[in-house]
């Protein structure tokens, strides 16, 4: 089923903040198989010039889609989630993510289009601290296989 184009331009803001923790960064680093001490040892991170351990580049995937998930679950969008695969992803940083950061996300559906038999939808998520300091922007394109069929 074609996705509802009326959703383009809609913005979804997270209702609660995501608090970054050392434990979660360490867990994520372990899950991607990365033993870099800068992800788990505060002293090693400080020796490298950071105030604390640093989140890996792809870490924002943990929380950045929470608010956009609301759109995906809206029956009016017409998305068959069983047919969804990840199309593209990008992380653009203003500054690194550290433990203690309290982050909120504003996700906007920037594009919905057909490509062959698939439907593509792109969501831009602007991640800031609760105080409004920009941290990063993520771009997520999902593909609904056969959606345009």
């Amino acid at each position, binding site marked *: 089923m074609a996705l509802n184009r009326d959703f383009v331009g809609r913005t979804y803001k997270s209702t609660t903040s995501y608090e970054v923790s050392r434990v*979660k960064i360490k*867990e*994520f680093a*372990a*899950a*991607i*198989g*990365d033993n*870099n001490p*800068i*992800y788990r040892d505060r002293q090693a991170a400080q020796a*490298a*010039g*950071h105030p604390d351990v*640093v*989140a*890996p*580049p*792809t870490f924002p*995937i*943990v929380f950045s889609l929470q608010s956009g998930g609301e759109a995906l679950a809206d029956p009016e969008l017409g998305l068959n989630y*069983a*047919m969804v*695969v*990840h*199309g*593209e*992803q*990008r*992380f*653009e*940083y203003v*500054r*690194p993510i550290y433990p203690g950061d309290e982050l909120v996300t504003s996700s906007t559906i920037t594009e919905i289009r057909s490509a062959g038999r698939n439907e593509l939808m792109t969501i831009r998520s602007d991640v800031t601290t609760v105080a409004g300091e920009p941290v990063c922007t993520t*771009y997520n394109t999902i593909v609904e296989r056969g959606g345009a069929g």
Partner: protein
Amino acid sequence: MAATVKYDEVEVGQELPATDYQVRRLNLVMYAGASGDFNQIHWNERFAKTVGLPDVIAHGMFTMAQGGRFLTDWVGDPAAVIDYGVRFSSMVIVPDDDQGATITVSGVVEEKLEDKKVVVGLTAKSGDARVLSKARAVVQLS
């Protein structure tokens, strides 16, 4: 923050040697838990086959993270990767055995930008399949 790679010592066209990353079912279970992506196609072979997949496949984000490891290991500082984007062009099929699958990542310095930044293009393959395309990062060197 300090990249260990110096801008002045890097040239356009410079190749970053290929590195192999193993991915076994256990890695996907761990990644599901850490990322919160519990889609069954990443751990349930029976379900994967009912939606037309050949077997369990890796999370695209797991593959992207291996490209991220490649970049951060090269540059020496995770915070030096200031922009990183990929297109997922093929699946990484992960069989239920002790070997799992291999993701091979290599890179090339494509462009030198202002302020000691460079563009690195990545190639990621699993078997004969190119699993990432348009994989590019802007990296802050020192």
